[in-house]
């Protein structure tokens, strides 16, 4: 093909290491795949598909080379880009890395380049969303555990969880990402991310409900009537976050129709989750907590 793309698509297991293995594969075989997608994603391609098995050694070689041959900032972008919701993000990362190995550290400054600017905006988006959620996320205490539900567009859990762990080292908390069906559980300086189709929470007790009432009352009282400006509020706090915010969920239309804490079928009971039964599949995301 004229743009040097091979007529092949890569498929990988959806993990970060798997994606890096695809990068390795592409370099070793001197080919540019038309697409790279995780195995559980719907496939719309007429090209032949090759499954690239995750190879830890290959992945490590790529991971180690990025900060050395490009820059630490580039390594950070690759991690965040992988967690972002950018379309064809794996292919974008591959293009970025190819350019990066060529240009070195300057690549993250080359915002006029299509590839770099696309990745840059994806990274901005996820950083922005995780910053907002550090504020907009709401915990409610259920059975001694602080629980929260979020619906982010990007996979922000690995970015926000360390913030809350640093903030509340003595608490036990669970944040459930409903979009990606993932959850993070923190207790005694141990943090784990695991997939979760549904989480059944214990009901809130009276003390919890009292604090929610107090907070709602504070929220209502603090507004100045003479400055009423709901549009300004919506600019700063987009409506898609409201359904999980104690003080604003009542203002979302049709809220009653949706039970905020239920989805999908396979369920993990909170009690068990908290105390013993943490699922095994955590390795893919551990990587982010080391740095």
């Amino acid at each position, binding site marked *: 093909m004229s743009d040097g793309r091979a007529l092949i698509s890569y498929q990988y297991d959806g993990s970060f290491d798997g994606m890096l293995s695809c990068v390795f594969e592409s370099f070793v075989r001197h080919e540019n795949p038309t697409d790279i997608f995780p195995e559980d994603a719907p496939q719309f391609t007429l090209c032949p598909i090759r499954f690239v098995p995750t190879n830890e050694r290959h992945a490590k070689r790529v991971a180690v080379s990025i900060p050395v041959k490009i820059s630490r900032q580039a390594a950070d972008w690759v991690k965040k880009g992988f967690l972002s919701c950018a379309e064809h993000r794996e292919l974008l990362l591959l293009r970025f890395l190819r350019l990066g190995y060529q240009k070195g550290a300057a690549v993250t400054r080359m915002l*006029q380049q299509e590839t770099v600017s696309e990745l840059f905006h994806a990274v901005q988006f996820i950083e922005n969303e995780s910053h907002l959620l550090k504020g907009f996320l709401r915990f409610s205490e259920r059975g001694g555990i602080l629980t929260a539900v979020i619906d982010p567009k990007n996979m922000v859990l690995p970015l926000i969880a360390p913030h809350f762990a640093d903030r509340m080292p003595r608490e036990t908390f669970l944040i459930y990402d409903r979009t990606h069906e993932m959850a993070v559980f923190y207790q005694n300086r141990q943090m784990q991310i695991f997939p979760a189709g549904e989480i059944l929470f214990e009901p809130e007790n009276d003390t919890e409900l009292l604090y929610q009432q107090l907070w709602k009352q504070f929220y209502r009282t603090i507004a100045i009537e003479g400055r009423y400006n709901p549009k300004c509020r919506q600019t700063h706090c987009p409506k898609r976050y409201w359904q999980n915010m104690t003080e604003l969920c009542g203002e979302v239309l049709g809220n009653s129709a949706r039970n905020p804490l239920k989805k999908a079928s396979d369920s993990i009971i909170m009690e068990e989750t908290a105390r013993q039964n943490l699922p095994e599949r955590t390795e893919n995301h551990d990587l982010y907590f080391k740095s």
Partner: protein
Amino acid sequence: MDLMEKLTILSDAAKYDAACTSSGVDRKGKAGGIGNSSACGICHSFSVDGRCISLLKVLLSNDCVYNCHYCVNRVTNDTPRASFTPRELASLTIEFYRRNYIEGLFLSSGILKNPDYTCEQMIETLRILREEYRFYGYIHAKAIPGADSALIARLGMLADRMSVNIELPSEASLRLLAPAKKKAAILSPMRQIRDGITENRSDLVQYRHAPKFAPAGQSTQMIVGATPETDYQILRLSESLYQKYSLKRVFFSAYMPVAEDNLLPSLDTKPPLLREHRLYQADWLLRFYGFTASEILDEQHPNFNPFLDPKCNWAIQHMDQFPVEVNTASYEMLLRVPGIGVRSAKRIVSARRTGSLDLDALKKIGVVLKRAQYFITCRGKLPDAARLRSDNMIRAVLSDKAAQMIGTTQGEQLSLFHNPNLLTREDVMKCLTGEL
């Protein structure tokens, strides 16, 4: 009185304080404690007036002995009174903080009995938070004018940010509306806090673990629109506050008529929100864009142009300095281009090191060209829109709201036959600079 009632009364009484920022200090959490703090600040919610809610903003007490005319808590006002006990408030703060409702506490108070007693109560609240709960989150404390300097010093050791409200932009207004507050009584704690911060900084050089005095600096607030000062006077005042008192922020609060008083504007006065907005825009220009107050306004033009933001206004009066070439202009000059902010300017400077930029590249970088295109060239060329229709400029630099206020049409019927009398670029300029 139950907690709900107290919270209602005391947050209602505190809501006219503009500051709700949690920025300026980076602090990691510690084992066994609760809380951390990040320098950029985190907004936790936005109230229906569009203001950020970051801190639990309450008064310790609204049972004030003073009688400031503009204040809801003045002693002669018939309003319900309440006071938190220090322990009550500390526990409420922690419970809100755990649920991630807030970033910390903003504590102010009416003058309960006397300034010293009030200050002691505030110190006790912060002490419980810092020492008993081991709370490392953000605390903003209002210094109580007239309190003993030892108490202010203690308060500064417990809080992250301190503030003393200057209340009104001139001494004459202060004398008129807040007879119990003297200019000296406001400035002396401000000076003390400034000196505390400077001294502490040199201690920190010597002893890394020296306790920190108000590490997030100090701020102040003044009411705009209750008294006849011009925008220029207000801006000059804030500039000198930044310079002389090294303030981190000066907040402006559009006067909300809350009290019937013959010294004050009448109760049906609308709060001057646009004026407040312009002041904030100018304040940003002072702090981040390298402008001085006398560049933004002067004796001849002592008030803001309601239709144009201060930066556009400056640019239009200095068209001789434009257009600037994005590939060669200094960072300082890029910052002066309407529509280019700190972020865009930084990105441009960084990206142009790797290759020259054209209009398309600017778009990819994320520079918003709506206004900027009239003030820049890319590789020596004016952007098309700017070249083709110079009269578009006025519409582009006006905000949508301002355009509505003037009543310009937002588009027009094209004609094959004759060129209607459009404003030329010069006309637009003259009109805006007041020559026409």
